[in-house]
C-alpha cells in the first residue's frame, strides 16, 4: 500500500483525488453509492453570492470521447451553501474546496467573505467558466482581469485560495503567473474548453446556450500539456484536471506537475470513477515500487 497522501497549501489530503466542481453537486447524490471519506477532497458545485437559475435546456451534448455542458452555474447561493451544504460536508472527513464564482470581482469577494468563519478548508475561485455571459470567461482570459479578481478575493479571505484557470487562452502560463503574483496560493486547471455542436437536421445548436464547455477524455492531452506548462512557470502547487478517467491518467497528470487531480466527466460514465482511480493509482505505485505518490509529482523528463 503506497502512501497516497498529499499536502496542498498546508491542507492534508488522504489521497490526491477530488471530484471536480459541477459534476458532484454537494456530495449527497454520490454518498448513496460510496462513503465520501474515500475521496481526498470534494470541489463543490460553483456557488455565487445569490441563487442562480442557470440556462435553459438542453444543457448537455455528447461529443466524441467527451461532452459539452452549459449549466450556467445553477446554484442555491452562498448563504444556502454555508447553512445547509457545508455543515453536511464537514461531517464527512474529506477536504472541502468551496468553489465560488461571480459576475464581478466584488461579487466574488463578497462570496469568499461569506466563507470566513466557516470550516471550509479551501476556496477554489472559478475565473474560467465559459457559460456566464457577464464575467466568467472575461476574467480568466486576460492577465490583468485574472490578477484583479484574484487580488480582490485574496483580500477578502484568509483561507487557502486556489484559482481555477481557463484553457481558452493563448498562454495559460502567463495567466498562472499573474494570479500567483496577485496572491493565489495554488492554481487548478484546466476548466472546460469552449465548444459547439449543431443538430444538422434542425440547423440549431444542440445546446440552448449555443456554446458550452468541452470535457471528458477528448481534452486530456490538452490538460497534460497545460499542467506541465503551468507547473514549470509558477512556484505554487498545481491541481490538475481535464479528462482524467483512470489511475494511469491521474499518474500522468501528476508526472506533468500536478500535486492533486480532479475528476469530472468520468463520473458520469462510471459513478465510482474517483474511488476506482484512487485504487488504480495505488496499484500502479505498488507495482513500480514507489512508496509515495508525492515522489512522482513533476517527474516527467523531456526528450
Amino acid at each position, binding site marked *: 500500500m503506497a502512501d497516497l497522501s498529499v499536502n496542498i497549501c498546508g491542507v492534508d489530503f488522504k489521497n490526491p483525488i477530488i471530484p471536480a466542481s*459541477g*459534476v*458532484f*453537486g454537494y456530495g*449527497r*447524490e*454520490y454518498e*448513496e*453509492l460510496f462513503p465520501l471519506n474515500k475521496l481526498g477532497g470534494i470541489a463543490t*458545485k460553483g456557488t455565487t453570492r445569490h441563487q442562480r*437559475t*442557470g*440556462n*435553459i*435546456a*438542453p*444543457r*448537455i*451534448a*455528447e*461529443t466524441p*470521447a*467527451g*461532452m459539452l*455542458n452549459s*449549466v450556467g452555474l*445553477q446554484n442555491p447561493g452562498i448563504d444556502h451553501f454555508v447553512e445547509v451544504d457545508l455543515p453536511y460536508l464537514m461531517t464527512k472527513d474529506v477536504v472541502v474546496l468551496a468553489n465560488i464564482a461571480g459576475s464581478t470581482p466584488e461579487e466574488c469577494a463578497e462570496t469568499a467573505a461569506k466563507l470566513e468563519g466557516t470550516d471550509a478548508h479551501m476556496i477554489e475561485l472559478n475565473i474560467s467558466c465559459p457559460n456566464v455571459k457577464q464575467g466568467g470567461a472575461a476574467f480568466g482570459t486576460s492577465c490583468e482581469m485574472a490578477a484583479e479578481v484574484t487580488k480582490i478575493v485574496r483580500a477578502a479571505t484568509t483561507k487557502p485560495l486556489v484559482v481555477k484557470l481557463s484553457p481558452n487562452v493563448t498562454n495559460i502560463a502567463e495567466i498562472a503567473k499573474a494570479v500567483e503574483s496577485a496572491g493565489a496560493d495554488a492554481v487548478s486547471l484546466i476548466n472546460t474548453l469552449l465548444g459547439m455542436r449543431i443538430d444538422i437536421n434542425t440547423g440549431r445548436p*444542440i445546446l440552448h446556450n449555443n456554446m458550452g464547455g468541452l470535457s*471528458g*477524455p477528448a481534452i486530456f492531452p490538452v490538460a497534460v500539456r497545460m499542467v506541465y506548462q503551468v507547473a514549470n512557470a509558477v512556484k505554487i502547487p498545481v491541481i490538475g484536471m481535464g479528462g482524467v478517467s483512470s489511475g494511469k491518467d491521474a499518474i500522468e497528470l501528476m508526472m506533468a506537475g500536478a500535486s492533486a487531480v480532479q475528476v469530472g*466527466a*468520468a*463520473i*458520469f*460514465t*462510471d*459513478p*465510482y470513477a474517483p474511488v476506482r482511480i484512487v485504487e488504480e493509482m495505488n496499484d500502479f505505485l505498488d507495482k513500480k515500487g514507489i512508496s509515495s505518490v508525492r515522489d512522482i509529482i513533476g517527474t516527467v523528463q523531456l526528450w
Partner: protein
Amino acid sequence: MKYTQGKYLIIDKKAIGCEIYSFEISCPEVAAAAVPGQFVHIRIGSFVLRRPISICGIDKEKGTLRIVFEIRGEGTAEIAQLNKGDVVDMLAPLGHGFTVDESFKKVVLIGGGIGTPPMLPLAKAYGNKAVAISGFRNSSAVILQEDFKSAGAETILCTDDGSAGIHGFVTQPLAELAEKGGIDAVFACGPMGMLKGIASICKEKGIYCEISLEERMACGIGACLGCACRTKRNDEEYFAHVCKDGPVFNAEEVIL
C-alpha cells in the same frame, strides 16, 4: 431514493417492433427498489454519457426488470447490439415515479410512441381500474397492446394515419372519457405536443395529471444539474431536474 450501479445479466431479448427492442434483465436489488415511472441509466462502451431508458416492467418476485427502447441514435444502436447472456451496466432505479394511489377508482394512462413502455408498470399497478390509451404513427409502430390487456387495462389504440384503431390523436378519446367524468387521474408519457394537449384537457376538466418528461442527461442522479426543466411551484419559476425531481412531474407544475 435508493439506487445502485452494477452489471446485470440480460436473460431475454426480443425485437418487438421496427428497431424496437425488449430486454429482460436480472437485477434483484434494482427490481426490489423500482417503482413505475422510474428509469435505468445504461453505460455504453464507447460513449462518455449513459443513456436513460424507462422501465417497462418490474417483477419483484423474479427479481427482473424489463426495458423497451427504440434505436434513436448511435448510443441506443449500441445497446441494441447486446444479446441474451450479455451483461448491461446500469445505474438504477432512478428518478421520481408516477403516483400509485389505491383510493383511485379510475385512471387513464396515455403513451405516445416510445413513450408507451413506462405506462405498462402503472397498468399493472392499477389493473382493471386503468384505461390505457396508446398512440402511434401507424399500425407497424404499434407495441405492447397485448401486455396492457394482460395487465387488466382497457385499451384504446390510436394511429396518426388510421391504419390501426382510431384515426387520430390520443387526446380525442381522452376528451371523450373526460367528458363522461369519474376519472381520478391521468398519467402520460410521449412527445411534448401530445403532453401539452393532455395537460390542457386535464386542466380544463380539473383532473389531476402527471406527465413523464425526457431531457439530455449526464449524471442521472441530480448532481450535475444538466437535465433542466422549467417548472413553477407557488407561482415561483425554477429549473427542476428531470433525473431526480422527475421524470414524472405534476403537469400543473411544468411550463410546457
